[in-house]
C-alpha cells in the first residue's frame, strides 16, 4: 500500500467511482462515487437502499456493472485487494463444529499466516475483541454477541487497511456495544478506514466521523454529520435553550433574522429554530454575555444521525418518511 505523508491530503483507502450495480432490471446502486479515508465512516439507509450491495462491492464479493471499485489502488474484485480488506459479514454463519479459537486459526491459515506468527496473531486479535478466555468453547454454543466478536477477530487477523462491518452491533448487549465501539475507535486511530453499516442510528452519532446516507441506490449525502446537517436548508436547526429569563431572551432573539421560530416549552426552556447556525451561535454568545442571561442549557435537538436521516428521507422521498419506522428495525433493538 502507498502510504502518504500526514502533511499531505488524506489518502483514500477505498474508492468507488461512478459505480452502478444491477440485479437484472433492478438498479441496486446508482452512480455512486465516494472515497473512504482513515477513520470511521457510518453507512446509513433504509432497507433496500443498497447498503449491503455497496459493502459487497467494496469487499470484492460483487463486481460493479458500471464504474470502478478500488481498495488501496487495486480492483476490489481481485485477490490482491483482499489482503487489504477485513470483512465482517452480516450473515451469522460459521463452521459450527469448531471452537472460536480453531475458527480464527483456520482463517489465519487461509490468509497465509502459519506457525508461531499465526498463533500470536490469533491470540492478539482474540484478546483485542475480548474473547481470549472464552474462545475454546464450540461456536455452536456462542451467544450472538460472542459470534459477532469472533467475526470481528477473523476480520482483523491480517491487519487490514479497510475494515468493513455489516451490522456489527446486532445482538450485542449494551456493555458489549460500548466495548466494540471503543475497539473500533482504536482501530480507526491506527490509520485504518472502518466502514460500519448499522440501523442503530444513535450509535452512529458516537462512533462515526463521517456518515454516508444511501437511499434507493443513490448516495444522497455524505460528510460529517455537521456538514450534512448544514446542507439541509429547508430544516432550520432546532436548539433548546434553558435560562433564567426565557421570556426576555425570547423577546431579544425574535429581533434577529437567524431565528425563524421560538417556542416556549414551560419552565425555563425555549425551543428555537435557527438558520444558518453558523451565524446564530456567535450572535447568541454575544447576546448572552451582553445581556447577562444565565444560560443553563444549550442543546441542538435535531443534528443527530437519526434526525438528519429523517430530513434526508423527507427531502428525497416524502412518502418514504412515513414508512421509515417500519423499514428500520423495531425501536426495542436500538
Amino acid at each position, binding site marked *: 500500500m502507498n502510504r502518504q505523508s500526514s502533511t499531505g491530503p488524506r489518502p483514500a483507502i477505498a474508492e468507488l467511482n461512478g459505480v452502478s450495480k444491477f440485479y437484472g432490471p433492478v438498479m441496486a446502486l446508482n452512480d455512486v462515487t465516494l472515497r473512504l479515508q482513515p477513520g470511521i465512516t457510518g453507512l446509513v439507509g433504509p432497507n433496500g437502499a443498497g447498503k449491503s450491495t455497496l459493502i459487497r462491492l467494496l469487499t470484492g464479493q460483487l463486481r460493479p456493472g458500471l464504474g470502478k471499485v478500488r481498495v488501496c489502488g487495486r480492483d476490489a474484485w481481485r*485477490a490482491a485487494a*483482499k489482503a487489504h480488506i477485513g470483512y465482517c459479514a452480516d450473515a451469522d454463519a460459521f463452521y459450527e463444529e469448531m471452537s472460536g479459537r480453531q475458527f480464527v486459526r483456520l482463517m489465519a491459515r*487461509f490468509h497465509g499466516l502459519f506457525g508461531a506468527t499465526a498463533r500470536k496473531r490469533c491470540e492478539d486479535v482474540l484478546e483485542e475483541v475480548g474473547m481470549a478466555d472464552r474462545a475454546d468453547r464450540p461456536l455452536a454454543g456462542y451467544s450472538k454477541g460472542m459470534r459477532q466478536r469472533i467475526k470481528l477477530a477473523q476480520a482483523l487477523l491480517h491487519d487490514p487497511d479497510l475494515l468493513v462491518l455489516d451490522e456489527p452491533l446486532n445482538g450485542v448487549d449494551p456493555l458489549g456495544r460500548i466495548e466494540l465501539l471503543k475497539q473500533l475507535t482504536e482501530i480507526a486511530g491506527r490509520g485504518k478506514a472502518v466502514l460500519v453499516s448499522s440501523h442503530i442510528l444513535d450509535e452512529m452519532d458516537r462512533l462515526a466521523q463521517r456518515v454516508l446516507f444511501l437511499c434507493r441506490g443513490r448516495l444522497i449525502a455524505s460528510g460529517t454529520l455537521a456538514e450534512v446537517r448544514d446542507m439541509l436548508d429547508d430544516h432550520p436547526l432546532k436548539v433548546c435553550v434553558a435560562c433564567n429569563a426565557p421570556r426576555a431572551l425570547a423577546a431579544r432573539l425574535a429581533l434577529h433574522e437567524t431565528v425563524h421560530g421560538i417556542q416556549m416549552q414551560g419552565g425555563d426552556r425555549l425551543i428555537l429554530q435557527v438558520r444558518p447556525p453558523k451565524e446564530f451561535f456567535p450572535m447568541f454568545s454575544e447576546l448572552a454575555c451582553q445581556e447577562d442571561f444565565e444560560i443553563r442549557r444549550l442543546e441542538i435537538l435535531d443534528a443527530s444521525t437519526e434526525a438528519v436521516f429523517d430530513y434526508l428521507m423527507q427531502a428525497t422521498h416524502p412518502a418514504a418518511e412515513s414508512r421509515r419506522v417500519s423499514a428500520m428495525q423495531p425501536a426495542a433493538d436500538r
Partner: protein
Amino acid sequence: MTTALAVVQMMLTAVRRMIWSRQTMISLLLLALVSLGCIAWSLRGERDAGDFLQQVLLPMYVAFLLPISCLGFATVGIAGDREEGTLVYLLSTPLPRPLIYTAKFAAALLLALVWSLGGLWVLGTAGGPAGREAVAVAWPAALLATLAYVGLFQWFGAVFRRATIMALGYALFLEVFLGNMPGIIKRVAITFYTQCILFEAAAPLGLPPSGPHSAAIFQPIAGSTAQMILILLAAGFFVLGAVCFSRREYP
C-alpha cells in the same frame, strides 16, 4: 509458498468437513445396501467374473453407486459452503478464486476416489472370488469415471444454487435414462464411456454380453478412445468450473 500452504489447508479443511457430512453417511448406507446385494448374489450358486460384472457392477455400481457417491462429495464442496453461508470467508481471503476452486476440487476428488475405489473393493470382496476377479478388471474404468463425475458435479456446485438436486436429476435422468437408450444418444452419458472401458477390459471374461448390452445394440467405442474422452471431460469440466467460479458472484 504461503499461498500453496493456504490452498493445502483449505483442501484439508474441506476433506475433514466432508468426511463428517451427511453425504458420507448416505454413501455409506448405499454401499452397505449394495454390499448386502453382492453377498446375496454370491450365495446363489456358481458365478464367474463376467456374471459379476454384468449382474452386479454394471447395474448397481457403474449406473448408480458410482455417480451418487461422486455427486455427494463433489457438489458439497462449494454448494455446501454456499448453503451454509461460509463461502464468504473463503472469498474474503487473498487467494485467487481458481486456487480456491482447485482446493475444493482436490478435496472432493480425494474423497470420491477413496470412496469409489474403496467401494469397488468392498463389493468385489463381498462378491467372493468372482467379484475380486471382476474388480481387478474394473478399477481403471471406475477411476476415470470418478475423475469425470467429480469434474462435472463440482462445476454444478459452482454454477447452480441447488447443485445437489440438479446433480441428482442429472444422474438419475441423463445417466440412467439416456445412458441406456439405443443408438448414439447414450454418448452424452459418462456411464457409456465407463462401460466401453469395462467391456474392452473384460473381453476375456465374456463381455460385452448378449441382450441389452450386446455390441450390436450398445455400439461401444474403443476403450482407449473412451479413456481419452473421460480424461478430457474431467479436465474440461474442471477448467469450466474454475472459470465459472472465478467470474461468478455469490451474493
